[in-house]
């Protein structure tokens, strides 16, 4: 069973996405900010990280950079309501593999996660 770490400061988003991913058969853990995400990544070693962009303390782009320093092969999918190309470009440049726009679409979530998990 693949392990997915959800990182979002919104308790609502964590709850909704966790329900969705557990129903899809994934093992899911959550983190409310980038700093917790970094320690959880080291401890739990998830196969994929679903990461919000707009977060207090450490924003998503910085979190991508920090996660990539920990593990250059980290599979990170951005979860965001900020659909601007410039922000998404920064996240991809930092190492994110893909992005998902909020509100989440079940079919798209499944498709993107399975695709990224299957990449070498």
């Amino acid at each position, binding site marked *: 069973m693949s392990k997915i770490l959800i990182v979002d400061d919104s308790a609502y988003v964590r709850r909704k996405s966790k329900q969705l991913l557990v129903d899809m058969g994934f093992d899911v853990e959550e983190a409310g900010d980038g700093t917790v995400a970094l320690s959880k990544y080291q401890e739990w070693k998830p196969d994929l990280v679903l990461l919000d962009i707009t977060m207090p303390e450490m924003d998503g782009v910085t979190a991508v950079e920090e996660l990539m320093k920990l593990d250059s092969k980290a599979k990170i999918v951005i979860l965001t309501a900020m*659909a601007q190309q410039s922000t998404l470009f920064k996240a991809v440049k930092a190492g994110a593999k893909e992005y998902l726009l909020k509100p989440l679409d079940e079919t798209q979530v499944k498709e993107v996660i399975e695709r990224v998990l299957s990449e070498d």
Partner: protein
Amino acid sequence: MEIKLYDDFVSVANEVLKKEVKAEAKKGRVSICRTPFAGNDINVLVGVTGNIEGVVIYGMSNQTALAMASIMMEEEFHKVDEMVLSGIAELGNVITGLVSKEIEQKGYTIDLSPPTLIVGKGTSISSPNIQRIVVPLTTEHGALEVNISLRERQSKGGR
């Protein structure tokens, strides 16, 4: 120069409300206010920076928040708690985030702050020197008021 974005907010809000709370939003009479915003029971504030700056505030009653959160989380809520507030904050975050794409396509740079919740009716919030466009939206779950106080930044300019 004041920018006219309320049509983008109306269409994006409608799209998000349809998906998240399964309801159509009807737009009421749009007005322009220069007085401070007097908060509703629950207010979600999203700060905007870049060469468009200001704030967007979404206001609603407790009753509307409970009705919307109950649909969003498929669970009946009777009290406004942290989870209800988190869901309502996310609605504001998602609407503003998706509108930011439209703004970027108009040639501006824009960054958003994480949503801030202000709970309590009558809280006065003002954005000095920026007019406030008030867009009332009505849904079957209650009313949502979108207050848009945005302007093009003079010093750095847009396109």
